[in-house]
């Protein structure tokens, strides 16, 4: 089959399939679950950088949002609390919060929405005692999806703040 015929066949198939826009029924992997119970630091003492690897709460660096929302859901209160404590315990520590959205809507508006989500987490950390100069917010909008399918389970994974420690 030569190229012309092949492309023609594809073109006809496209017509038949109403522009090839058939929905794919692909199951996305479930979003990683946030720990529901927090392992408190083993001592009453301050966090150390080692805890970033060993403490179940501190190892959680992502929180999720509802569609078009930027409020921190109560299920993530413990995540906010332990990272705020880390920042309080380690005044030299610095973090970048990366705000992200799902693909729905326009790219530039989603930059704004991602920033709003990043700011929401930054405010919560500051309210819990972290210092504003320890936290930087960057919005990536919809530009850094972790899942690329067009369905809610995928979108849910993408509506997130990522916590990145730049100085531990």
């Amino acid at each position, binding site marked *: 089959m030569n*190229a*012309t015929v092949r*492309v*023609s066949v*594809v*073109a*006809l198939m*496209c*017509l038949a399939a109403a*522009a*090839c*826009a*058939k929905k*794919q029924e692909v199951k996305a992997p479930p979003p990683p679950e946030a720990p529901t119970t927090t392992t408190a630091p083993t001592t009453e003492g301050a966090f150390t950088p080692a805890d970033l690897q060993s403490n179940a709460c501190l190892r959680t660096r992502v929180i999720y949002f509802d569609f*078009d929302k930027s409020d921190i859901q109560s299920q993530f209160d413990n995540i906010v609390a332990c990272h705020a404590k880390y920042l309080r315990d380690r005044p030299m520590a610095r973090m970048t919060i990366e705000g992200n959205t799902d*693909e*729905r*809507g*326009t*790219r*530039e*508006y989603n*930059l*704004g*929405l991602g*920033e*709003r989500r990043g700011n929401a987490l930054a405010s919560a950390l500051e309210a819990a005692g972290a210092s504003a100069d320890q936290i930087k*917010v*960057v*919005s*990536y909008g919809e*530009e*850094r999806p972790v899942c*690329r*399918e*067009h369905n809610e389970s995928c979108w849910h994974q993408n509506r997130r703040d990522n916590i990145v420690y730049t100085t531990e």
Partner: protein
Amino acid sequence: MRMPKILFALIFALLAALFATQAGAQGLTVQIVNGVPSAIPITVVPFGQQGSGPASPVDIAQIVSMDLNRCGKFRTLPTSEVVESPTTGSQVKFATWQQLKQDYIVVGRTSYDGGALKADFELWDVNKQQQLLGLSITGQGSDLRRVAHQIADQIYQKIIGVRGAFDTRIAYVTMVGLGDNAQYALVVADSDGYNPQTVVRSHEALLSPAWSPNGQELAYVSFESGNSAIYIQNIATGSRRVVSARAGINGAPRFAPDGRRLAVSLSFQGNPEIYAMDLGTGALTRLTHNLAIDTEPRWTPDGASVVFTSDRSGKPQLYEIPASGGTPQRITFQGQYNANASISYDGKKIAMVQGNGNVYRIAVMDRSLGGQETFVSPGNLDDAPSWAPNASMLLYAANEGPRGVLYAVSADGRVRQRLVLGDGDVREPAWGPYRNP
């Protein structure tokens, strides 16, 4: 008897597929999704060769044909049905073309010498047997396809009464690979997708390309520094400068019609606000004062006001504010979500992304018809409408399965063509201004 619509669609698809093989080699393919039976029938006879020089390296008649088909206003006779091959008006046997139900016929001949192409062409009205155009167009070197686009523009203008926009360029962003292997490119191509040239490459996201009014520069947003920053780059020389890399969002650049100011959305003062930047001094004039997301500023053609997206009422809607500042007026009231406006050259039509539930489509609001709105795309995740400079067509981005593709659609939404990259994701189309021949 009217030929069934599906038959026309079939003919268009085959025709498009025929052209597509050649276009595919260039990176983009064109497919006509649905044709229009009311399109004007026109024959473009393959051009003859003048003089004893080498043959033209480009098939002028084929390119003209493809342009006319693309815009949805014409339907060209397939080459296999072009039964005679006149190259001058005096050779045209009008009875033949009347029998084939053609309204117009284009004939011509080329001469090619030392890299310069000269095309003489004539446009005739078949029924009146009257010559409408007789012109000679020349082109040099790598711009030979432009000769054909300029001929198509002349034909379009003569028959439709509006300047043609085939001899224009488009910009878009491509992405291949995922995650850390992602490669982004900002590409400039002819309006039919040929001659793609990469303007800039990046491992981080590129978005929101915007043409300068003279077509020589592109403003865009790049994340290559780790945060959004706005650049202006000269297309021909590749030289570029950062115009905003402030803390927070640096987004949504748009040149003013006079080319001296750039409207942007910046969040360094706390949340995204619209500013007008003087490109000579870099000075910022803040236009909006609100805790909402204010972004996607678009100058009206007279430069007197700016239409932008704001969620100050809860969900994103379009607002208009004087370019010198003032009180914004909301201008969209249909649909839950309206954003990413593109304003036609005459200011009458505003294309936008309109979202209802999980369906995002391109809507066109006609301000000269009291804000009447029509959808010109089927959804579900359409974005980034961009008018051709004559508002005959729109480009927009859509998702098909896992990848992004571009569509060109006629202003009435009746004819759509898909422009797809062979590989990867295409998004963020921006239709450039008219070019001077």
